[in-house]
């Protein structure tokens, strides 16, 4: 925070950069790998790693070839012997070429070795529709990763959380996939204090309410805030739960909220069917069935690849009005 009364604001991309900077300063074992991430190559296509190679050298901040399997493999191998690599997979769709390294190796080596080794790597990747990049550059694939035992999955909804969560992810002794939101890189929010921390596995409740719980994460949080405003105008008091860690997620905070409101909608940008919302909805039913006013609702994007044309993309994509509609449906 700056000295005057208005809190200083920073962008998401800056917060991420600060988190990596702090991690690299705190621990010489933190290294960065990724395409074009060093300053000579521009400090990352979205400039998230700008300045870090200048500060820590290109031994620790390495621009790589276009070889996602080799990138994640290098992270796995160095993590096995004490490094804390942060590998950038430029866009989330590109993890499709590195799923073997992530799923069969990063997530499993601790277990298969009987706990002799661990894989404390972090994969940073960005995605999200609304940028006009079309079908192969916008997918939200967190449901795949959440289904893989041994992987943690994290998504932040504001710069301060991004700072705290990315730092925690890097320092965590498990493999973590940290999902960023491309259109959100330039969104501002209050700056975190340098020692600000956010633990993995703990959800937050950025808005309290009494009538219905909106459970979400990442790009869903701003949609839920917008929806909550609209609902408030209609006399409905919505509480927002921001999961922050998608897997393993904070059941306690979610159940506490829904036990109070007795109604819930799970909201995410990913395609609705077989998305993470299904697991959260199921668990709420399993724990709180008889308390619920109605079945838990879900909001997600449509059953289609991300469309290019803005009209179709908009119709396909989840938005705050979908949340309002679903909440009202539930509340009858």
């Amino acid at each position, binding site marked *: 925070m700056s000295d005057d009364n208005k809190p200083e604001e920073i962008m998401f991309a800056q917060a991420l950069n600060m988190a990596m900077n702090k991690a690299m300063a705190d621990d010489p074992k933190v290294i960065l790998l990724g*395409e074009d991430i060093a300053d000579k190559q521009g400090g990352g*296509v979205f400039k998230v790693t700008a300045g870090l190679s200048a500060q820590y050298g290109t031994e620790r901040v390495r621009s790589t070839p*276009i070889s996602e399997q080799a990138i994640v493999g290098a992270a796995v191998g160095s993590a096995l012997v004490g490094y804390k690599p942060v590998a950038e997979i430029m866009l989330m769709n590109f993890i499709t*070429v590195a799923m073997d390294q992530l799923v069969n190796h990063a997530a499993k080596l601790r277990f298969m070795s009987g706990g002799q080794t661990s894989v404390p790597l972090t994969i940073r990747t960005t995605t999200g529709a609304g940028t006009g*990049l079309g079908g192969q550059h916008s997918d939200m694939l967190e449901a795949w990763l959440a289904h893989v035992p041994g992987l943690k999955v994290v998504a932040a909804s504001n710069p301060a959380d991004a700072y705290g969560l990315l730092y925690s992810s890097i320092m965590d002794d498990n493999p973590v996939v940290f999902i960023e939101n491309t259109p959100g890189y330039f969104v501002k929010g209050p700056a975190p204090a340098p020692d600000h921390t956010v633990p993995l596995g703990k959800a937050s409740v950025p808005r309290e309410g009494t009538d219905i719980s909106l459970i979400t994460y990442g790009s869903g949080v701003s949609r839920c805030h917008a929806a909550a405003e609209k609902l408030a105008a209609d006399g409905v008091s919505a509480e927002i739960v921001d999961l922050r860690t998608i897997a393993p997620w904070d059941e306690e905070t979610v159940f506490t909220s829904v036990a109070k409101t007795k109604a819930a909608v799970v909201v995410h940008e990913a395609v609705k069917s077989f998305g993470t919302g299904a697991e959260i909805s199921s668990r709420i039913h399993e724990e709180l069935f008889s308390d619920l006013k109605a079945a838990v609702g879900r909001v997600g994007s449509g059953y289609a690849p991300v469309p290019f044309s*803005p009209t179709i993309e908009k*119709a396909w994509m989840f938005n705050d009005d979908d949340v309002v509609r679903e909440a009202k449906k539930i509340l009858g």
Partner: protein
Amino acid sequence: MANTDMADKDVLTDIFTRADLIMQSDIKFRQMIGAGQLQIVYYPVRGQEVVSAAMMAAVNQDDYLVTIYRGLHDQLAKGIPSKDLWAEFAGKVTGTCKGKGGPMHITHPETGVMVTTGIVGSGLPIANGLALASQLEKDGKVTVCCFGDGATNIGAFHEALNMAQIWKLPVIFLCQNNLYGEHTAMAESTSSETIKQRGEGLGVRSVRVNGNDASEMYAAAKEAVEFARAGSGPTLIEAMTFRYHGHLLGDTSHYIPEAEMEQAKKDDPMPILRQQLLDLQISEADIAAIEKKNADIIEEASQFALDSDYPPGEEYRIDVLDVEIAA
């Protein structure tokens, strides 16, 4: 590099006609985006016109093409009508793909353009599949697969070349080596001196040519096409070229040493090719007529793109499966 004779007048005129359409289209796209008339992510092709113009002049319209996000030059050279292409770039319902694919995902089967992909390297395995179909079908078609130098560092490149070679597939792997992958210089990401060397390591017939020289590029293309049609298998063509306007529009090329950029601009293939036509006694008037015709095509196409409608939102439920998805 190969020492080739000059291609004949008609061939060079054909190549120039295609290349000029590409160059003018690229300029127009950059203008319109700069002016805010189009809001799209655009991968400029200025500098690489001759590579694809010469390549596509050596194949037939029903031969297949697989290309990448930086694909405007390949798509135009292969013959996609400008109106359809412009409308798709603009996301309009009149576009090749009804606005669903966009610039990174152009398909146009009538001109053999089967796939445009945004995932580096992933076109090569698919190109093999098209070539496999032709081999089984005995339809005599070849498949041209375009990609960049950076793509030769990804696993799919390796797997595809191996499979194409053991099955002797009629496919031409056209590496448009513009010396950069995004902001990374080839020398900093690529372990071998040349891409040709990689093809040879895989036992694939491999050549390296000045892709900016129309005659040399055309000769290499022609030879590869004949080799493929004869059933002798794939060729890797490493076509040396350059891109003048960065990875995507807005990129300042800060990572390209000034001297390198200056030299590259001196070697601009377009004025060189134009001069070659003049040297072959094609009149300035004839050349100007080609240029005018291209300009008219682009004028009409860009206007058509602007005037066309966006698709209705509900269109997203169509073409996901072979049946419409319920709302």
